[in-house]
């Protein structure tokens, strides 16, 4: 199995001189199995460049797994050129939103409306299918098995584990490990903490022993103080997860939009110094780099 980041940025695309090295597109990850089956995690703006790269392979079968429906993870869908070309098969997978009861097809249909986009959903020429996935319910794509788990974010968010050819990748989507909402002196504190601990164990189990763990690490600890509840993790929360899960490589992604290449690298150097013995390789997610496991 191999993979490539086509989008590593959180929230909003950030093109420009400051993000040339790591990239300014929003989330998109291409995974290829040893049989060359195509699995795509999220459809942020990075999916447009991926689409250009796929034109030479037409017709294609693409399996797009959406972690959640915030704009930065779906805004590239209408620009995924294979959807306009006959004989392509595009399968889009995602959960049912418990607030709206909407399935994942809304992620595309809501964007293909007269006011927002010139082409209607009915005009797409590829064969597009939607599949509702459930936490703990594995989905097969060729030799790969993809298993979702609910990870806390301000909207329903799935982390996906991909097991294939004896190797494994886990991507959190956007994820903020739940903190205790009570103060230590509150009656509810201990009980809530037991729920937090149980969920943590469930999450660690889902990513146990993966070869590559890709985590939302938007913030430094200092930044996180004023960003609690925004739904994103920190570099340190990513390291804590990787250590507990015994991951081999840890990729930090969902780079904060104002983060320049230089500041990203400065943070990275500090992480390497402060965590010399994590037992896993720490890496910054960077657009366009092929990663073989």
């Amino acid at each position, binding site marked *: 199995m191999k993979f490539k980041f086509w989008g590593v940025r959180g929230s909003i695309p950030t093109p420009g001189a400051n993000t040339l090295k790591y990239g300014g597109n929003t989330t998109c990850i291409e995974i290829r199995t040893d049989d060359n089956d195509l699995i795509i995690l999220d459809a942020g703006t990075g999916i447009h460049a991926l689409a250009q790269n796929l034109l030479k392979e037409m017709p294609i079968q693409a399996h797009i797994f959406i972690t959640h429906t915030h704009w930065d993870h779906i805004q590239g869908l209408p620009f995924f050129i294979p959807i306009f070309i006959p004989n392509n098969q595009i399968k889009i997978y995602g959960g049912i939103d*418990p607030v709206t009861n909407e399935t994942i097809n809304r992620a595309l249909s809501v964007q293909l409306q007269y006011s927002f986009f010139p082409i209607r959903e009915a005009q797409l020429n590829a064969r597009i299918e939607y599949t509702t996935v*459930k*936490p703990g319910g594995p989905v097969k794509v060729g030799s790969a098995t993809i298993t979702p788990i609910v990870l806390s974010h301000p909207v329903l968010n799935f982390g996906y584990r991909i097991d294939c050819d004896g190797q494994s990748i886990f991507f959190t989507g956007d994820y903020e490990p739940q903190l205790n*909402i009570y103060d230590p002196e509150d009656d509810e504190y201990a009980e809530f903490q037991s729920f937090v601990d149980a969920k943590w164990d469930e999450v660690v189990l889902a990513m146990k022993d993966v070869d590559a763990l890709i985590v939302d690490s938007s913030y430094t600890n200092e930044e996180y103080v004023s960003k609690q509840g925004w739904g994103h993790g920190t570099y340190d929360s990513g390291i804590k997860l990787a250590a507990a899960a015994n991951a081999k490589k840890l990729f930090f992604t969902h780079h904060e939009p104002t983060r320049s290449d230089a500041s990203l690298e400065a943070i990275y150097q500090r992480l390497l110094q402060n965590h010399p013995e994590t037992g896993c390789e720490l890496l910054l997610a960077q657009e366009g780099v092929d990663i073989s496991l």
Partner: protein
Amino acid sequence: MPNSKNDKLIVLVEKMPAFPKSVQQVVQLTSDINASAKDIVRVIECDPVMTVKILKAINSSFYGLPQKITSVQRAVVHIGLNTIKNMALGVAAMGMLNANNKANFNTSEFLLHSLTTAAISKMLAERIGLSSTESSDCFVAGLLHDFGKVVFAEFMPDEFKLALEKSKEQQRPLYQTEHEFIGLSHTEAGKMLAEKWQLSETLIDAIAHHHDLGHSQNVLRDCVFAANQISKYMQFGDSGNPLIEDFPTSIIARFGLNLPAMCEALGNFDYVKTEAQSFINL
């Protein structure tokens, strides 16, 4: 009651609004970007309608949980506060339960009974050394044990009115007169809804059998039974049933005391009522 009627009831309950104070507070708290998570959770977990709708959504097969989620707090940890908050706001958008229903069923008194039963049920669970998770499940079971009644008041007010009146007049248990006029008791209606919503087995059992202890062994249900009688004995609210049941031997064996002795042993717990009232009165 024929199944088509039950199905109709299930559909109607989907649109059932929550209690006025919690609707008002959810709207207020969700408009305030600085509202604290614990304040939001507190409001939701004190409203039977909001609680039940969140548990229903989260326990649906779409979220493939290996174990049922039995409390609002646990739902928050599982899926995130914002989703729970927006689910509550969705319930709030359905309006408010009308205090002046055609059944003449006082929904404020009902809520006071439900909330105090919930709190006492939790106290009893802690008293006999149940785990914190089981104790919080007892709170939820106490809160929801009479859910069927408020469904009757909302959707079958004419029949429920007759049941309430006859129960009072003849000093007979309400679940019996419900059967006569509705063809279904609040425990059966609650059980049917709880099963449909895939709530946890113990919670379904507590709702279904809180008047029928011989049916099963369920410590959670026993806490609810005892708390239900204590709440009535102390006149904390009113859920329409004029009868207070003595503790049978199984309950005395469980808690070591009879009803009056238990009320005595719990000391001064009027605060349970005062606290509950603060969640009810506008």
